[in-house]
């Protein structure tokens, strides 16, 4: 594999990891708002997950940015110029969201405010984040007087933008509902599980529809992408298969819990579904990072930097992995909270 391929693969893995964790994070914020006063543990469970984890998820976001700059600095140049406004707005929302998250944890009595803030920002941030996809497809960028600009009026009047946003939102809600269903089961709260299972069942099919609409509605500029996507049919078939498997598993009889569904299987299958689909999308997107000017080759960093980053990744992950495992066991496997809740 060439150096660029390794770099883009690592970047893809990071983006993928963030899109899953970020979806769960933002979606959980939304569910926390919706179920604030719910009779089950649904709202509490959502907050319970968010409190210790948002910081790690946020660091992953910065990781994606830094990795992008390190591997493809020239693409970072273009995207930073073109996406200046949307990304700055994302930063604004992220700042408000994180601050409220911490402050309301420290000040009991303001949970309602937190839930509203994290619920609303939980919808807005992903909707803004996903606009980067149609932009990299090349449909909304033009070069005027030697500088690249985003064509705002074209972007906002394009149905593709809204289809992408809907795709982002439905995915976020689907993934987080599934995750919370599994988390509820893990924590032993069957009625909370049922709440999230129902949501996941309802939203699941919409993710497929919006994904297809988003891809086909962008316009003539992205015909190159559609042609490439057609070459990746096997991957998409695999992805669809995993969706069917995961979706179906929500109805399988589960004797141990005396109810329907195997949420752990569903979560893993759906993550697999997204992995294959986004891999295929990424593959079809190549060699372009931003169509049509920037390819992985022209945007690539220097060789020496590439290799030192590679070594750093190996060393850094080896050092941090035990910390992550400790963290995971401490917070996600711990059931003391359901016990406390029932007291």
């Amino acid at each position: 594999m060439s150096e660029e391929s390794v770099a883009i693969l690592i970047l893809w893995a990071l983006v993928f990891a963030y899109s899953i964790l970020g979806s769960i994070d933002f979606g959980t914020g939304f569910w926390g708002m919706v179920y604030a006063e719910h009779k089950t543990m649904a709202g509490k469970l959502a907050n319970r997950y968010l409190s210790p984890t948002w910081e790690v998820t946020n660091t992953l976001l910065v990781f994606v940015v830094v990795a992008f700059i390190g591997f493809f600095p020239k693409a970072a140049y273009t995207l930073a110029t073109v996406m200046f406004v949307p990304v700055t707005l994302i930063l604004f929302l992220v700042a408000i969201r994180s601050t409220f998250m911490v402050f309301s944890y420290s000040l009991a009595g303001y949970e309602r405010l937190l839930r509203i803030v994290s619920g609303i920002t939980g919808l807005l941030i992903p909707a803004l984040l996903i606009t980067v996809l149609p932009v990299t497809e090349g449909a909304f960028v033009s070069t005027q007087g030697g500088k690249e600009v985003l064509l705002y009026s074209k972007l906002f009047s394009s149905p593709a933008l809204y289809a992408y946003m809907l795709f982002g939102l439905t995915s976020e809600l689907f993934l987080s509902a599934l995750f919370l269903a599994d988390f509820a089961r893990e924590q032993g709260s069957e009625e909370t599980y049922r709440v999230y299972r129902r949501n996941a069942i309802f939203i699941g099919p919409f993710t497929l529809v919006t994904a297809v609409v988003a891809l086909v509605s962008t316009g003539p500029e992205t015909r190159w992408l559609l042609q490439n996507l057609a070459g990746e049919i096997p991957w998409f078939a695999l992805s669809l298969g995993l969706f069917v498997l995961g979706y179906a598993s929500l109805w399988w009889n589960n004797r141990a819990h005396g109810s329907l569904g195997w949420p752990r299987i569903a979560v893993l299958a759906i993550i697999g579904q997204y992995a294959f689909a986004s891999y295929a999308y990424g593959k079809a997107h190549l060699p372009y990072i931003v169509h049509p000017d920037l390819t992985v080759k022209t945007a690539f960093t220097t060789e020496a930097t590439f290799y030192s980053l590679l070594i750093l990744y190996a060393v850094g992950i080896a050092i941090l992995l035990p910390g992550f495992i400790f963290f995971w066991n401490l917070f996600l496997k711990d059931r003391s909270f359901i016990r406390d809740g029932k007291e």
Partner: protein
Amino acid sequence: MNTVTLSRAFFGTSLAFHIIFATLGIGLSLMIFISEMLYHWRKDTDYAVMAKRWTKAFAILLGVAIPTGTIVGVQLALLWPGFTKIVGQVISVPFQIEIFAFFLEALFMSIYVYAADRLTPFLRLLSLFFVMLGATASAVLITSANTWMNTPAGFSMKQDGSIYDVNPWEAFFNPSFFTGSFHVVITAYLAGAGTIAAVAGWKLLKRNEKTAQEIAYHKKGLVLGLVVTLVTGLLMGMSGHASAVNLYDHTPEKLAAAEGLFETQSYAPLAIGGFVDANTHEVRYGIEIPWALSILAAFKPSAVVQGLNDFPIETWPPFYTHTFFNLMVFAGTLMIAISGLGLAYWYFIHRKRGKQFPKWLLWATVALGPLGFIGIETGWIFSCSGRQPWTIYQFQTTAQAATKADFVGPLFFLFIVLYVFLGALTVIVLRVFFRRHPLTADLATDGGKRS
């Protein structure tokens, strides 16, 4: 204002806001670690209470440090895309390691804050140690990038701006890396310790309203704050001096601007205070100490110090850097003096003769808090503005680095509103929190060590 100026103002404002919280995060993590150690060593539960209460403040401040850090991190790319292009090719290593440091701090901070009751004492101390390590490492790493901008190394550049011959580690360990990061870390500890001393001094000013137990607690906090302020203050002087020598060796025009020195000369004087007159090219209303600059920069009075006239006028840093440099040194000198005096009073007069701290001395310790931050802010403005017109010294000008995007102005305004709002909110949250959790309650349960 044009886009370049707007970008500079925007970025400078974001950073100035971020470092208040980031620096407190670094300084407080050290103080928390020390007080946990003191608790285990002395078995004095007051120190456990301190660690607990400071951690609460720390967690609240981190709630602003992390999102504002995210802002500056991404804005580095957004506002300076030209710079980012070179950063990505040459100096991405420290940024990357910094991510790992953030993970370290984030993981163990969550563990320490949200699961403290489930940890053994050893694991608590270990988590704290990692938090401190992560925070300090963040400072070292970001400073590596900044020192590289001041003294770039580890690459070559062609006429057309393309980069070759890259050595990332040489860039990382650039000529001012050690002096710069040492100074930054020490001054972060200094500012943190100064803040602790300031809060304790403030509480002791209102001693009439307090119980004997509370007064004893605040005194321990005061002494601990003063000791760390003095120790780090002395180290700060040494490291600051090393930074100045480094300027003499590598970026002489920055030193010349800091001192308002125009003529290259031996036996160069040190100019304190005053301002640089742009017309007459001399320092007005300042105090000149003969020979001092030559001695400071090169250890001998006959050393030649280059003046600004040796450099093309387009590459002169702005003259106001003289004032920022003076303010930083002034803050540092005062902090050493106050903490030294406070400790001397405590040891010779309070302990030996049982006299209370006088009001003026307590007010002086209160000043340690703001002084630390004056030092931090003016120091950074000096360092970044003193590099002008360069973003990467002698390789890239600020205008080449800046974004060409539209709407920089309106978004800058939006963020000013955000920072004012977040700053005010932080103060309110801290006050409400500590009013709801009074010290007496924590002292009664010994900070949860006994209940």
